[in-house]
């Protein structure tokens, strides 16, 4: 692929009825509502423009795009003038040329002239248009009043704002308003003094700017430009690939110069992101070439020895020998593997295949265990399939949006921007969250209802909403009658109608006024298309699965499944959580969510793989660790997951890992888990391999290799090396062959292959004979399981309770600039925004404890103790404290307990009883762990080869 800019039609597409007109003698037909500019661009007539770009509504300020229209006076701007039937337009006349040149002459009278040394040289619309209008001389001269003395703003680590290069086209301001929805930028002053300002004329870093990059992308000059372009020059080729951060699945053009990545530019045709991005995907990719990358395999006899760099051959041979030795000594089921939601579908498929075919057991699990496993269980039980019901675009049809246990503006920022656009258009918002997340009140958005419930009371809250809907007669009876299991509905309706489940009855429990709950329930049931979006604040509870089912119940009762603008939509944490689950990463099921006990499914795989599969479910991660402590589980292959930092009750994880004889970690960096590993296999980044990711809307998108892996192998190749060392004889030469195997063995993927992905850009499963174009929305006429299944969700309080020793409830989450355990984002300039995890505490609770803002505090639970600094805020309610878990020093999971979801063992991260006291230093655990980590990371460099 060579470097060409994406075509810019100037104004957004329209969708009206066909209108015919003539432009420069050429007849054409376009949808009504199309601008003359766009219509012209569609027939390859590019009218000069500067303030127009097709990602933004037309603005009409630059006045370069003037045209002549027969029968109309003057020279209307083609960007703001829609086509009309029979219109005759001329885009090039002497008069127009003169006017455009006059406008350009004004621009250049107030612009630097150092084009050849400008960072946007060759990629500058002002330069292009000056050329297009044929400007040769600026008769005003260059010594009039100007803006050339403005100071550059280099506060943002990723881009620079040079006001001297600014032409005040407002594209950045409009991008911040329309695309991102943060409204951080404005035009300050008026007339000739107009200038772009961030927030109250602050520098970009200290302003409300979230560094999404939309302004940089929109800028037609180098006024806003990526620092990487300033440093490296403009790119010479571009490869479209998929972001490896969150579950939104943005697609980007990786713009390259040779082997070097110059910038990531969100792809306009990306179906998930529509040309938008966030600070992580857009800018935080520097970790890929960070010095901390481990590129050579390493082995050691025991974890107190330093690492020894070895050849791939030696490392792989060691792994194979150790695993076989352990199995011979302790039994077939004594080893297992963990697949990664960070890796591709093909890679996770291979890891679970390695376990099932090679290890001969089902001891495979994935990080979805600790995030969305309850989604799988809950939606499979109620609807019949373990996935969200809609595509992201569906939100543009929602009238009511219910966000529960999710913080989209931080966790899923690009989708949040799309959601905010709909909210600004007038959709109503209900937020159920203990914290006052940003969505509750942000520019031009205010939640109709925020229900700040006590952590751990989701089921009681949702059941109370169901109570209102049923007892106030708001159920969509016709829908339920036709689409759902009637007996189950009757049982459920009777259950929720019980007065003990009314909002009034649970008011004390949840801490939310009953009237608010009633009002929110009524709005959800009667406000039109109602969509539910949820995240880990739903799943990471002792009743995570019940909460998912309670959500599904609400949606079915109100007829909100199977239509646009509605549905039940899990916001997936990681880029490929959906895919990892689809690929059979759970110990009880094969790809496509088919239980391992099903002989027919097993037979399909056995025939294809030439192996006999264990019909019994394998161990889940926490059970693997239990078994390790018991001495029955001795070896593990962990690909791309840092369970020591990310899984709950760190001490339990450490004890389990320490009890194993062969811990193999494959990762980009020496992560925390690697401190307990015996073999380290270097991993490759998403930039270094081909494959596919599946995002939260079941969208399968290609990941394309843009550079050679530093470590020499893509991760799927490493898994194949291990498999073959164990005698499995795999022969994949490209990930597309793995996808072919997945398609062959998985009915919901039957129609998926790389050719189709190349052609269509992306597809949403199920894709097969029944759905040859894939499935943007599920359950349209009937549920996958047949009739929708209402499930009674009794509120069972968690056993994690506050008391005199631990009077506060800790809940956890993440922040925009950082990503999960921070392995990547901590190795980028994103730390400028979030250098450490802080404990949010309500002023009232802080006052009681003598804690001031910024003080070090000790955070203690019955599981452990850590220290971090306090941030006093009323975002959290009294009695609730909150922290992120992005930094290993914080060790937030030393605090979390081993309580978990009843159905799936998804950890109860969101509820831990804690005490907070002033402190003056790290806890004993933090100190001893720091020593251990330091010792464990020693590397003995290999002798240089002769």
């Amino acid at each position: 692929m060579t470097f060409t800019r994406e075509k810019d039609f100037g104004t957004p597409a329209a969708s009206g009825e066909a209108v015919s007109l003539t432009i420069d003698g050429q007849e054409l037909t376009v949808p009504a509502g199309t601008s003359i500019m766009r219509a012209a661009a569609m027939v390859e007539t590019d009218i000069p423009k500067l303030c127009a770009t097709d990602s933004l509504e037309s603005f009409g300020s630059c006045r370069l795009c003037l045209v002549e229209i027969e029968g109309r006076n003057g020279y209307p701007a083609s960007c703001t003038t829609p086509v009309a039937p029979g219109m005759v337009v001329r885009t090039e006349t002497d008069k127009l040329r003169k006017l455009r040149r006059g406008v350009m002459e004004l621009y250049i009278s107030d612009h630097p002239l150092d084009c050849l040394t400008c960072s946007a040289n060759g990629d500058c619309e002002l330069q292009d248009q000056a050329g297009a209008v044929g400007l040769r001389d600026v008769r005003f001269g260059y010594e009039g009043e100007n803006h050339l003395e403005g100071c550059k703003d280099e506060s943002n680590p990723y881009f620079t704002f040079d006001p001297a290069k600014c032409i005040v086209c407002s594209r950045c301001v409009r991008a911040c308003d329309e695309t991102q929805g943060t409204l951080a930028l404005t035009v300050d002053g008026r007339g000739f003094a107009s200038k772009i300002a961030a927030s109250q004329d602050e520098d970009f870093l200290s302003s409300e700017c979230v560094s999404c990059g939309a302004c940089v992308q929109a800028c037609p000059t180098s006024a806003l430009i990526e620092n990487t372009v300033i440093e490296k020059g403009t790119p010479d080729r571009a490869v479209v690939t998929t972001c490896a951060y969150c579950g939104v699945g943005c697609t980007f053009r990786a713009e390259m110069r040779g082997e070097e990545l110059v910038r990531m530019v969100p792809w306009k045709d990306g179906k998930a992101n529509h040309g938008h991005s966030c600070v992580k995907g857009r800018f935080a990719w520097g970790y890929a070439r960070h010095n901390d990358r481990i590129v050579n395999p390493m082995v050691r006899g025991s974890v107190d020895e330093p690492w020894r760099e070895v050849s791939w051959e030696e490392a792989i041979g060691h792994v194979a020998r150790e695993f076989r030795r352990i199995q011979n000594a302790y039994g077939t089921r004594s080893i297992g593997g963990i697949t990664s939601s960070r890796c591709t579908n093909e890679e996770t498929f291979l890891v679970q295949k390695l376990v099932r075919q090679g290890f001969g057991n089902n001891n495979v699990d994935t990080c979805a265990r600790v995030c969305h496993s309850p989604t799988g269980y809950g939606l499979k039980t109620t609807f019949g399939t373990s996935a969200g019901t809609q595509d992201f675009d569906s939100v543009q049809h929602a009238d009511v949006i219910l966000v529960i246990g999710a913080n989209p503006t931080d966790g899923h920022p690009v989708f949040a921007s799309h959601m905010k656009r709909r909210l600004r258009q007038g959709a109503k918002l209900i937020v159920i969250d203990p914290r006052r997340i940003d969505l509750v009140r942000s520019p031009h958005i205010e939640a109709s209802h925020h229900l700040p419930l006590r952590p751990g009371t989701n089921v009681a809250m949702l059941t109370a909403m169901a109570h209102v809907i049923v007892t106030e007669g708001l159920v969509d009876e016709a829908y339920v009658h036709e689409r759902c299991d009637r007996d189950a509905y009757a049982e459920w309706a009777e259950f929720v109608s019980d007065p003990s489940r009314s909002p009034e009855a649970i008011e004390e429990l949840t801490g939310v006024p009953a009237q608010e709950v009633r009002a929110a329930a009524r709005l959800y049931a009667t406000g039109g298309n109602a969509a539910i979006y949820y995240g880990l604040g739903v799943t990471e509870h002792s009743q995570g699965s019940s909460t998912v089912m309670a959500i599904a119940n609400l949606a079915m009762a109100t007829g909100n499944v199977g239509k646009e603008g509605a549905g039940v939509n899990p916001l997936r944490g990681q880029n490929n959580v959906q895919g990892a689950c689809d690929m059979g990463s759970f110990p009880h099921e094969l790809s496509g969510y088919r239980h391992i006990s099903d002989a027919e499914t097993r037979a399909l795989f056995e025939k294809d793989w030439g192996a006999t599969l264990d019909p019994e479910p394998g161990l889940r991660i926490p059970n693997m660790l239990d078994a390790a402590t018991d001495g029955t589980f001795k070896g593990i292959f962990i690909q791309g997951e840092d369970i020591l930092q990310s899984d709950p009750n760190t001490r339990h994880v450490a004890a389990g890992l320490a009890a194993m004889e062969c811990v193999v970690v494959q990762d980009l960096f020496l992560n925390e888990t690697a401190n307990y590993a015996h073999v380290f296999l270097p991993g490759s980044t998403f930039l270094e391999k081909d494959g596919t990711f599946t995002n939260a809307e079941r969208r399968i998108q290609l990941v394309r290799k843009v550079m050679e892996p530093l470590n020499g192998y893509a991760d799927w190749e490493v898994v194949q090396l291990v498999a073959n060392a164990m005698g499995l004889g795999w022969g994949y030469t490209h990930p597309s062959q793995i996808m072919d195997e997945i398609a062959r063995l998985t009915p919901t993927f039957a129609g998926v292959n790389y050719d189709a992905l190349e052609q269509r850009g992306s597809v949403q499963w199920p894709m097969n004979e029944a759905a040859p174009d894939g499935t943007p929305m599920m359950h349209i006429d009937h549920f996958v399981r047949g009739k929708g299944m209402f499930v009674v969700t009794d509120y069972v309080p968690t056993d994690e309770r506050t008391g005199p020793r631990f009077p506060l409830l800790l809940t956890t989450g993440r922040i925009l600039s950082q990503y999960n355990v921070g392995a990547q984002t901590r190795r980028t300039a994103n730390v400028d925004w979030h250098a450490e995890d802080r404990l949010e505490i309500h002023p009232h609770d802080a006052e009681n404890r003598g804690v001031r803002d910024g003080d070090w505090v000790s955070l203690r639970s019955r599981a452990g103790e850590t220290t971090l600094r306090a941030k006093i805020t009323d975002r959290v309610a009294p009695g609730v404290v909150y922290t992120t878990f992005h930094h290993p020093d914080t060790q937030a999971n030393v605090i979390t307990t081993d309580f978990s979801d009843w159905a799936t063992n998804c950890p109860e991260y969101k509820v831990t009883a804690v005490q907070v006291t002033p402190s003056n230093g790290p806890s004993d655990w933090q100190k001893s762990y720091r020593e251990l980590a330091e010792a464990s990371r020693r590397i003995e460099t290999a002798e240089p080869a002769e």
Partner: protein
Amino acid sequence: MTRVFISKDMASVALGADAVAQAFAKAGCEVVRTGSHGLFAIEPLVEVETSEGRVAYGPVGPDDVAAVLDGSHGTRIGAIADHPFFVRQQRFTFARCGVTDPLSLSDYGVHGGWKGLEAATALSAQDVVDAVKASGLRGRGGAGFPTGIKWQTVLDTPADEKFIVCNADEGDSGTFADRMLMEGDPYCLIEGMAIAGHAVGAGRGYIYIRSEYPFAIEAMREAIARSASRIAPFTLEVRVGAGAYVCGEETALLDSIEGKRGQVRAKPPLPAIEGLWGKPTVINNVLSLAAVPFILAEGAQSYADVGFGRSRGTMPIQIAGNVRNGGLYEVGFGVTLGELVNGIGGGTASGRPVRAVQVGGPLGAYFPPSMFHLPFDYEAFAQAGGLIGHAGITVFDDSVDMAHMARFAMEFCAVESCGKCTPCRIGSTRGVELIDRIVAKAPRAAGALETMPQIRNASRAARTHDEEVELLRDLCDTMKHGSLCALGGFTPYPVLSALDHFPEDFGGGDALREAAE
């Protein structure tokens, strides 16, 4: 007890009307504060109620009470309608101004108020719109767009909510008709807006008044409060501007009401289809809306019978500047410019010869006396390279420097530009710089940059005077045809008219005119 009528119009107050009113009150008179009749040379004006009707005296000072009350005062006018300034006026819109207590609902009713609204509510919305169309009323804010057609668009656009917005951001120099009407007859505007609401199906109206008009703001607010039940269910609210001239542009005005930075919106969409908060909106000037009650009360034909060519009805013309009889003169279209300046206005106040008049505010063209035959008519003025605008006429005597006035136009545009579109944002500043050079007879020499060997295409020779003037004309062309709104688009009118009619002030001769395209 003797009743006397004294204006509380801002202009009258500025001339001492309050002190006069106090003096009459002290003397035991019942003082009724009215609006102004509109001739400032006779303010403060006192009208004494007698058995023969009101007898006017003016100007009157606070020491003149006794002389006025005994009829001996030397400025006795008699019946105001017989004064030469008023005798030929056709007061359709300003009929009550100066006559009634502006806030008295009974005065308003007695003097023909609400007749238009009553007539309108008896008609269908379409019939009202048709009446306005038939009257030939055109937008009095300056653009002259037929009001009835605008209303028809709003009526025809289906929406759950529509608005009537009155543009009372009267910012043009030498204009004061909006202010006088709001201070002197606020119910007339309210009635007009209520009729518009009925005609297009709007339930709510906003009156956007510039902050420099505190009396008008107070009068409108009080009048809205008092007449609320009369116009219900239609409701009205006053919004106060924040000093930006550009907010008098209708779309910037909408942004300002919405609480945004006042910036011009591109059209389409027309405000009539997507206006305030994206809803169909009638935006009309005060004078357009205030003309409507007469049209409905007296019939469209009565209005249309007056006028000239396609300019129907009357225009409240504001005569200001260096002129003897400055004030408001409402008359049917067609009166000549010369009649207005020399006849009605009485020539300059300074007594020196008239050299130029600017019609239509700071962005209107300058006319020399040789063009005084022009009839006051939208089309005639447009054809002569000018505009009527809001019908403000500013008179200058022969001491005026027209190059300075041209520079002022560019400077005004630079100061008031919202900064959105390039021709206005940069062009006005370049225009000031350029005119400065022209006036100083100092054409630009090649700049330091232009003479560097790295720059190849720029001329290294100094520019000539003619080249600088040609550049000014080109700049005016770019601004006129390229600007987003009338601010940048009309700034060339005063500049080019000054250049065309008074080339000698720019250091050139008649030759310059020939150089023009």
